[in-house]
């Protein structure tokens, strides 16, 4: 990976091998479904088969005769509140009265094996009175549309209003307005959702599960069981991917397992099949984005007018937080003086939509970055030049009026991506001129049609790290560190490892603060009984928030050790240095393990708590305020080749330049970048959820098309370091930005190659070929 990284002496910044690599590569890692307990039963969910209906009855007579049947659990068996709504309280755990989408669970069957549980679930007869449904967010806005809940389908609205938009358009020499549409995107993590609930002594319950947000789950389980939080313990098992899909949905899975366990008095496991996961898990919001942008002749943006309609699906789930982010960031990473953004969240009888890497932004990014390219084309300005001329930098203001005071590496990401990709030559068509391979030059639209058309395109983004003004109450994180008498350190945290490398970077941070080797550090997965509520592991916040909590606790231990060391070696306590397993002072040194042993002998505490709370953020009724404490920035450039015979788009190369504040580990960072880039490729070209009246027609990986390794382009990654003063070692969040600019960069490259601009994703081979056919006949 190319980077201008500071070259550190310690673990932070070094390519430390992932601490969980061996377990995962050898298969030793224990995922949820690997756990088997004595007396364990298995649960399955009873699905309605229709998207909208009143439930008149549940008859399990036939299910009872399935061999191994244990119990049927219905809404009436829920001891607490039948409610798992994450933000709005609109979602029953079991649809006892009304089914609002085809993935709603009406009942749970429990049996001695997963197969028997599913057989029993299929044998449960539901008496349903079908209702007319609404399956399109725009149609759901019509006055006569069927209502999904009591109130209006358009149940949610956010806005960012700034300056005088009409005047801004008056000042513009060129205005482009278009409507963009995006489809669902499925998280497609390797490990499907699953939970194992175990009723234990003293009226307590422990629930194991694959998840991002154990504290959400704790609240959901306590709620449905009607017991205090203190009696609910949630243990996150090794988690095979999340991408946002394990933010809120595990609440439902774990609550179902908990209710079934409570009812039967047995440990109950519930693991989704892939198809069940497609039906029941949340997805990226399909959005309609109407985008109007004005610019002066010299390429300065004057005004933006944006309307966003987000399909929330049957329940609100995380739509309020996702839509807040879409609206707050809708202008893209540019200074635009006059902005009117209105976003609406709309209920439909479709799958619920929630968090997905990028969190509501990739949809609006597709719009803003496409329109900017059209403006640049119209004005004859290079797309990167026009972005550099308008982009955020220190001293500029975001659309919410926030003054950026530090850590804005955006201009550098644009420049590095431009230079590393060879943009200027390729955009102008020089690189392909040789033509010895029979390939056409870029910008092929104006030339006679060659079979293969090449193009290059760019996308730039910003991302407010952590939860921002709409999630402030959740925005703190804890850590518990215990230095043992042999100098080894065990860390408990409230942030989750889901494959992103958290355990490794936390080990590196603690290692540097205390001067102990990474191998002496062990970090556990989350157990809610050990660390206080640390909020969710989402929004690129975990390395920053949990990292700061770990550093805080480690610093306290270090202070204790420094006191003991200065007593032993001489010198002032605050001048003791910790390096390579030793404390150094007064020209002498002592091993950390000796110091730890001394503390133990002298009854000095070496276990500490760390706690980090996010700085204040604000967002008023007009969407003005310091919405997020800090932002991450990125630019990606895509090079494509379009086969005009088949319509296939081959992505040849992606260049990703990301401002990450500080590189904590170049290898895990590159892993994040590559994976995210590939999700962008998927969103741009392949991933298309086909539905019909609320039923998913592509509920598996043979029909829902993800890119494979053969569809993966060369990915060239570059880190830019604009340190954040409050970040751990200067780092900012990096979880989501990799998946954000790629899709539109590809769309812009296709436009460059073919002269055709697509306003819907994915740009499948069929879509390209049929457009070409239209142009041929036109």
């Amino acid at each position, binding site marked *: 990976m190319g980077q201008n990284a500071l070259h550190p002496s310690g673990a932070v910044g070094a390519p430390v091998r992932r601490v969980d690599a061996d377990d995962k590569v050898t298969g030793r890692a224990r995922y949820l479904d690997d756990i088997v307990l004595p007396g364990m039963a298995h649960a399955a969910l009873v699905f309605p088969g229709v998207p909208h209906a009143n439930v008149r009855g549940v008859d399990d007579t036939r299910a009872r005769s399935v061999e191994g049947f244990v119990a049927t659990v219905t809404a009436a068996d829920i001891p607490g509140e039948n409610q798992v709504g994450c933000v709005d309280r609109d979602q029953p755990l079991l649809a006892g009265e009304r089914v609002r989408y085809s993935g709603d669970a009406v009942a749970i069957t429990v049996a001695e*094996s997963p197969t028997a549980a*599913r057989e029993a679930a299929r044998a449960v007869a539901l008496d349903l009175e079908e209702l007319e449904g609404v399956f399109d967010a725009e149609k759901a806005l019509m006055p006569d549309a069927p209502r999904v809940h009591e109130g209006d389908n358009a149940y949610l609205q956010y806005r960012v209003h700034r300056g005088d938009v009409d005047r801004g358009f008056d000042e513009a020499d060129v205005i482009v307005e278009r409507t963009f549409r995006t489809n669902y995107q499925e998280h497609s993590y390797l490990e499907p959702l699953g939970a194992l609930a175990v009723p234990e002594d003293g009226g307590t319950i422990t629930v194991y599960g694959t998840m991002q947000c154990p504290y959400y789950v704790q609240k959901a389980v306590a709620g449905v069981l009607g017991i205090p939080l203190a009696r609910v313990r949630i243990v996150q098992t090794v988690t095979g991917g999340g991408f946002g899909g394990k933010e809120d949905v595990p609440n439902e899975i774990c609550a179902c397992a908990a209710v079934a366990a409570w009812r039967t008095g047995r440990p109950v496991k519930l693991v989704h099949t892939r198809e069940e996961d497609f039906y029941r898990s949340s997805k990226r919001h399909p959005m309609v984005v109407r985008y109007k942008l004005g610019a002066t002749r010299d390429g300065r943006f004057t005004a933006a007018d944006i309307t966003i309609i987000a399909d929330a699906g049957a329940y609100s789930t995380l739509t309020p937080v996702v839509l807040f982010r879409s609206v707050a960031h809708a202008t893209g990473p540019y200074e635009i003086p006059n902005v009117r953004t209105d976003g609406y969240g709309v209920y439909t009888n479709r799958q619920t939509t929630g968090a997905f890497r990028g969190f509501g932004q990739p949809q609006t990014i597709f719009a803003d970055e496409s329109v900017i390219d059209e403006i640049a084309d119209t004005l004859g300005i290079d797309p990167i030049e026009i972005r550099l001329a308008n982009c955020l930098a220190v001293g500029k203001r975001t659309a919410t009026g926030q003054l950026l005071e530090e850590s804005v590496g955006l201009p550098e990401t644009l420049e590095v991506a431009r230079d590393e990709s060879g943009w200027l030559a390729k955009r102008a068509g020089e690189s392909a001129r040789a033509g010895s391979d029979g390939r056409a030059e870029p910008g092929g639209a104006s030339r006679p049609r060659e079979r293969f058309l090449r193009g290059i395109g760019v996308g730039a983004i910003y991302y407010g790290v952590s939860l921002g003004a709409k999630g402030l109450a959740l925005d703190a994180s804890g850590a518990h560190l215990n230095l043992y008498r042999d100098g080894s350190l065990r860390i408990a945290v409230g942030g989750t490892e889901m494959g992103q490398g958290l355990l490794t970077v936390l080990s590196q941070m603690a290692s540097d603060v205390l001067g102990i080797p990474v191998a002496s550090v062990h970090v556990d997965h989350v157990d809610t009984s050990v660390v206080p509520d640390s909020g969710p592991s989402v929004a690129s916040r975990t390395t920053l928030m949990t990292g700061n909590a770990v550093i805080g606790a480690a610093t306290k231990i270090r202070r204790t050790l420094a006191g003991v060391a200065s007593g032993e070696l001489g010198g002032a306590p605050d001048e003791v240095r910790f390096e390579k397993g030793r404390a150094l002072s007064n020209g002498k040194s002592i091993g950390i393990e000796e110091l730890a042993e001394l503390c133990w002998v002298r009854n000095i505490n070496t276990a500490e708590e760390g706690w980090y709370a996010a700085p204040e953020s604000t967002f008023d009724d007009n969407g003005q305020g310091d919405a997020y404490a800090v932002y991450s920035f990125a630019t990606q450039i895509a090079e494509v080749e379009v086969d005009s*015979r*088949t319509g296939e788009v081959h992505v040849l190369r992606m260049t990703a330049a990301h401002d990450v504040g500080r590189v904590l580990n170049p290898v895990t960072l590159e892993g994040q970048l590559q994976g995210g880039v590939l999700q962008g490729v998927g969103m741009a070209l*392949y991933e298309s959820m086909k539905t019909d009246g609320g039923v998913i027609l*592509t509920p598996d990986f043979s029909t829902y098309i993800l*890119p494979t390794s053969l*569809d993966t382009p060369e990915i060239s990654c570059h880190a830019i370091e604009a340190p954040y003063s409050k970040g751990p070692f200067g780092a900012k969040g990096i979880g989501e930005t990799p998946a954000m600019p790629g899709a539109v960069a590809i769309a812009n490259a296709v436009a460059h190659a073919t002269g055709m601009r697509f306003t819907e994703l994915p740009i*499948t*081979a069929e879509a390209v070929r049929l457009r070409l056919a239209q142009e041929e006949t036109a």
Partner: protein
Amino acid sequence: MYEPKWVFPRTIDDSLEALADESAHAIAGATDLAVRIRADHGGPATLVDLTGVPELARVAVDGDTLTIGAAATHAAVTRHDAVRQRVAVLAEACGTVGAPQVRARGTIGGNLANASPAADATGALAALDAVAHARSTRGEREIPVTGLFAGPGQLRLEPDELLTHVTLELPPPGASSVYKKLGQRKALAIAIASVAVTFDPTACAVRIALGSVAPTVVRAEQAESTFAGRWSGVVGEGGVAGQGCRDEVMGLIEEVAAQAAGASSPIDDVRASAEYRTILVRELTRTALEELCLAEPRVSG
């Protein structure tokens, strides 16, 4: 709960005995059948596993005849020297099936017997005029591959009949062939459309089989005869490199490709629309014919 009886014959005769039982069903690589059993929550009461019958896995050349055992895997066929050198279309078709794991298990017999219009090996075998050999305890018969199918999933075999092998005549030296498939991605992709094309310049003949664009794999017969009727006239003495000839060849290819598209009767499904499939048949046929007919003559063998 589905718990089939699983039997493991070692010879063809034992397999036939086992299949004579009404509840019995053949299983080879299981890459189609296991998927179906999972979707149906059940399946045949008895499974007759063909993977332990060595005779069924044989791939061999005898004179100009290629014999492929029904239980030969796609991987084995793709690897086979004679297949690669003399019937590239079959090596390529088998090489596009799924991914390495699927090719290591999936068999030619399973590909045929599944009777999918998208079956890749089946398309190539249809273009090669291959003949399927079926046996039961009642006797043996031969069926041209193109005559095996009555519709999607509908095989013209009796339940107790076993496909033992397919045979085909290896094309003469100078002949060439190619498989063109478009899926939704580069691997693990069922064809949206495919064409298998063989070209014999000496006989002035092409054979074109179309996949995924009709209820069964079909041959584009009118396109084939248009080609046969016009090729020698178009090419003349100087071969394809001759002045002016190239344009005429291109013209003929365009026409043949359009007729191939006419031979398709595609539907809309989750993978693609009928409209796109029709375009693809034309484009894939055109590309295949350009590669075969405009290539410098190669010495094969």
